């Protein structure tokens, strides 16, 4: 029992550190890439190429006043950022970053824990984080924040259905709920080729789940100032911000794992370390696409969001699940 605990502790420590630096530099990468899309220079003041910008941002946020509005629900106001951030970090517990390999004479998997029902775990954990956002909106006692929170919950619920069904078709095709099993099942071909419809649905609903453009109605600066974030400042704001960006990484990781073959790639069996490289490259590409979309698409209207979710994506994913089920049943 003890070695398992030590191993888990070390792995989670590395994971958290990686995610935190990943978040910090993702903010910079996003600003730099958006600048490239708009033919600008982007942040270049803090350090060479603006590489110290995340540090400057962090220092700034630490020194900001940690303000709680007078009529806010203090307990929920403080709790909400945590409820949002922790589930987003938890997703990474079951994501395999690489195959089994030997490190310092110790055989281990590059995965915190390989739960047998990992997919269910992911679906369950991701839906908790919307509570944090809705509660933040409620606890702030502010119209904009409340509207943002309500929009968040409505958007999440609408898109979670189609997303869940897309994952169901993945599970049906691979025949396992274990995340590492889903990756291994893609040895003969990525699921994006076998399940293109599910992949597209997962991508769109994922965008909506992580509130990225063009589905960023929750924050919608022009209408809601900053939505549920309006009353937040200092590190509590930073926690929300962190969860936004960690969700981006999480979305990339999930999309990679489910549809792009996870850590699989050429020569990965010979050199298991390559798995991490492939995984990072795939996730990096997906994050680039997210930023690309943000640089391109305007925010969609609320009624468009709802009709896309309920009238297009949900029936499509239902049909896809039924089709997959029939094919699986016939070929089994």
């Amino acid at each position: 029992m003890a070695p398992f605990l030590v191993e888990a502790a070390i792995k989670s420590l590395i994971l958290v550190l990686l995610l935190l630096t990943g978040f910090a530099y993702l903010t910079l990468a996003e600003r730099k890439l958006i600048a490239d899309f708009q033919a600008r220079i982007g942040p270049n003041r803090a350090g060479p190429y603006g590489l110290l910008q995340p540090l400057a941002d962090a220092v700034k946020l630490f020194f900001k006043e940690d303000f709680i509005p007078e009529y806010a629900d203090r307990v929920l106001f403080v709790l909400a950022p945590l409820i949002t951030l922790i589930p987003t970090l938890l997703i990474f517990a079951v994501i395999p970053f690489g195959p089994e390999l030997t490190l310092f004479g110790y055989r281990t998997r590059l995965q915190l824990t390989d739960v047998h029902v990992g997919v269910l775990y992911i679906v369950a954990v991701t839906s908790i984080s919307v509570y944090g956002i809705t509660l933040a909106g409620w606890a702030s006692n502010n119209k904009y924040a409340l509207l943002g929170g309500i929009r968040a919950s409505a958007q999440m619920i609408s898109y979670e259905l189609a997303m869940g069904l897309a994952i169901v078709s993945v599970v049906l095709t691979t025949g396992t709920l274990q995340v590492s099993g889903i990756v291994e099942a893609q040895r003969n071909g990525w699921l994006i080729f076998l399940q293109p419809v599910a992949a597209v649905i997962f991508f769109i609903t994922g965008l909506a789940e992580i509130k990225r453009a063009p589905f960023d109605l929750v924050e919608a600066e022009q209408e809601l100032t900053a939505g549920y974030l309006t009353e937040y400042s200092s590190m509590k704001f930073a926690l929300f911000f962190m969860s936004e960006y960690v969700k981006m990484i999480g979305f990339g990781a999930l999309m990679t794992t489910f549809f792009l073959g996870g850590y699989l790639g050429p020569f990965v069996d010979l050199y298991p370390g390559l798995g991490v490289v492939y995984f990072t490259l795939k996730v990096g590409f997906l994050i680039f696409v997210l930023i690309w979309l943000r640089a391109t698409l305007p925010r969609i209207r609320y009624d468009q969001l709802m009709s896309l979710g309920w009238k297009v994506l949900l029936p499509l994913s239902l049909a896809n699940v039924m089709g997959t089920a029939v094919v699986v049943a016939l070929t089994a």
Partner: protein
Amino acid sequence: MVMELFRGLWTTLQEFIQTNLRGPVTYAYPEVKRPLRTRFKGVHELRRYSNGLERCIGCALCAAACPADAIYVEAGENTDEERYSPGERYAKVYEINLLRCIFCGYCEDACPTNAIVLTDKIPPAGYARESFIVTKAQLLVPPPPGAPGTPQRTTDPALRTRSIWEEGLVNEPV
């Protein structure tokens, strides 16, 4: 709808590639300044001849030509002991109110000696309105290397009668 989506993505991707190949269209401002055309009409300067004498003879044609009434000139008499410019007179006071100036360049056109010229420098910012009235000391360029400043002590009789020095007739500034 889906096609338009991809067309939009293609457009932004082209922009992205171009920025990475040819660099951004903006400048890192305080370090790198946008190059201005030499014909740009910026802040004024009063030029000199290569012997250090001022070109301005205090005729005030610039002030007459100025549509915004931004120029004030007061002339003084040149002597052999204290000579500022060729000819009889020089500009004792030369002031331009940059807040009135519309940078039309009519003063440049009116000047018979090509003394006042609009440079490609951008007019400065300031905190007080008074700081925008630039005086002759601020407008006058330093004498060319090796040449003395003004006033000069001269004996050349040609300088007493002719308001344009020989050089001014052949070697005009661009």
